């Protein structure tokens, strides 16, 4: 497994709030390999974005606490990001060069008072580039690569002058300018129209094929996950409840939550007016959650005295496919 880029082991990210401890990420383990895409899927509040922010070490410093290991494997050996100072030189150097991130809302990712080109070039300068005209050439080539028409003109424009799709392309350009080995994409296409979304997804696949980067793709959209992911982690209330290859998750889901999610999307060609399967209730807030199955109170297969007394262990049901549910223990 020498091509593992990132290995997360038993990650916990807690926020200390006045009302109690918010266990946003509560014991999550996974790894991402070179040239592969891990899809992380779940509803709002499941901890998928906080997992990404923990890896980047950009959770709010004031009240968040990270424990567990976030191992970034490099030729020179592994470094545990969870132990680094989030403001220190080492973490700053790793951000952008080794791990980069793109967000849902590209409008807020760019400064409105600097041109898009200057912001992308800034990354090159911070990481050691000296030659200004070489940097400019490199950025123009990059904008061209991510599909921005007339890049030699666009490089001097501001983010508000670009459309949503063009802004997302620019953000991808900014993320990959230093050839990171891991790209974290947090709902990168959620704000886009479906035609633009498919262009961006295609672009990300092409870039991955060209430079072999590992991608962690976070979304609530099961259609996008099925298109992008090699492996899928299904998160619920701070925990990964099921993990497996995309085909295993979509064709043979095991966890009652995964099954419920897949059933609740409208299918094309289904009988007109038919009722959709639903999951009762709503996602609770993980404030001081009990040490039990997080899905217990919404689960149709709830077993009193089993599901509500302890957290079920992850059981391997097929090679590469694991599930945390008492039904499989």
């Amino acid at each position, binding site marked *: 497994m020498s091509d593992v880029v990132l290995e997360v082991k038993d990650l916990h990210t807690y926020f200390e709030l006045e009302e109690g401890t918010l266990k946003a990420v509560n014991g999550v383990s996974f790894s991402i390999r070179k040239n592969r895409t891990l899809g992380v899927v779940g*509803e*709002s509040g499941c901890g998928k974005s906080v997992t990404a922010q923990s890896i980047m070490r950009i959770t709010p410093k004031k009240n968040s606490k990270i424990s567990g290991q976030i191992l970034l494997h490099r030729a020179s050996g592994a470094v545990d990001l969870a132990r680094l100072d989030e403001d220190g030189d080492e973490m700053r150097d790793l951000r952008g060069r080794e791990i980069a991130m793109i967000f849902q809302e590209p409008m807020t990712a760019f400064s409105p008072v600097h041109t898009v080109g200057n912001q992308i070039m800034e990354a090159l300068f911070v990481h050691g580039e000296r030659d200004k005209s070489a940097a400019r050439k490199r950025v123009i080539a990059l904008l061209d690569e991510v599909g921005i028409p007339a890049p030699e003109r666009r490089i001097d424009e501001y983010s508000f002058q670009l*459309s*949503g*799709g*063009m802004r997302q392309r620019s953000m991808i350009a900014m993320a990959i300018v230093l050839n990171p080995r891991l790209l974290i994409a947090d709902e990168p296409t959620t704000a886009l*129209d*479906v*035609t*633009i*979304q*498919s*262009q961006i*997804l*295609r672009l990300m*696949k*092409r870039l991955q094929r060209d430079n072999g980067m590992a991608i962690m793709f976070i979304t*609530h*959209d*099961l*259609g*996008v*996950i*099925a*298109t992008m*992911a090699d492996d899928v982690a299904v998160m619920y209330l701070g925990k990964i409840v099921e993990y497996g290859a*995309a*085909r295993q998750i*979509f*064709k043979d889901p095991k966890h009652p939550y995964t099954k*419920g*999610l*897949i059933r*609740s*999307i*409208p*299918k*094309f*060609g*289904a009988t*007109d*007016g038919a*009722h*959709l*399967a*639903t*999951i009762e209730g*709503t*996602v609770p807030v993980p404030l001081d959650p009990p040490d039990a199955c997080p899905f217990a109170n919404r689960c149709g297969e709830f077993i009193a005295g089993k599901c509500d007394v302890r957290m079920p262990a992850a059981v391997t049901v097929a090679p590469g496919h694991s599930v945390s549910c008492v039904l499989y223990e």
Partner: protein
Amino acid sequence: MSDASLLEVRGLKKYFPIEEGLLRRVVGHVRAVDQVSLSIGKGRTLGLVGESGSGKTTLGRCVLRAIDLTAGEILFHHDGATTDLAQLSRRGMREFRKHLQMIFQDPYSSLDPRKTIFDIVSEPLRIHRIAKGRELEDRVRTALELVGLDVRYMKRFPHAFSGGQRQRIGIARALSINPQLIVCDEAVSALDVSVQAQILNLLNDLQEEFNLTYLFIAHDLSVVEHVSDDVAVMYVGKLVEQAPTQALFARPRHPYTEALLSAIPRPDPDQPLPETGGIEGELPDPANPPSGCYFHPRCPYAEAICREAEPPLVQVAPQHTAACHFAEELELNGLEN
């Protein structure tokens, strides 16, 4: 179709002026909605789709007269009479609005945080002086029960509720005065998948029970396919195709509809998005649209005539219209293939 229709929109136009300079001189117009005609049968759902900027929300607002239209007719058939909403005065419209309600996208900003659930849901009833006192409370109770909310929470404020529950509150508010038509503007887009299914089922049940008519505006085509009897597709302010849902999804007649359908990521790893092909480019600037057919710069089938002449909306099959010069000839792919 028209004899049983509840709402008929004819030649609706909404132009927004583009102003320039200190004197706010009008230098042009954005044709947000341009010559759109459609009709919705009583008790049916018309899905309205298109990319952002296509004018679908503006059309929905014009139908409710939330904004004034530039031209056109909005015929509402009710109790054996026909009313042209476009001709109503503000006062007349206010009276009429009890038949038309709206459900909004964002359940967070569409409820006043300083009002209790009772105040929010009872508001339409109080404004139209339909009920007061004991009766008012009963009607609110009934509306809340219909949408599956616990009536004990009536005195609480919106912040105590989740997104799905807030959307139920918005639906209860719309239902409280027994409207005929509900415009649902991206009513489930902000919700989580599992909650979205609950709300779609609720809308479906309510429609069956009260014979409600929905204008369902959404960008998610799988949701639109699920709820709609008919679907209308808009592109840069114009209607480019309209058909019964199954016909439109099985065999689209406009290349833009085909492009929309092919761009949907399917929740099946065995049907990934094709790596090549697909529609290129973005929606043109509606203030400065291309010549001829607005879609021609992005259309893989475009020919010379498409750059020169605007295609009329013509009937290509029973109840199926499309605005494409080659609607009859092209063999476009739907979702079955």
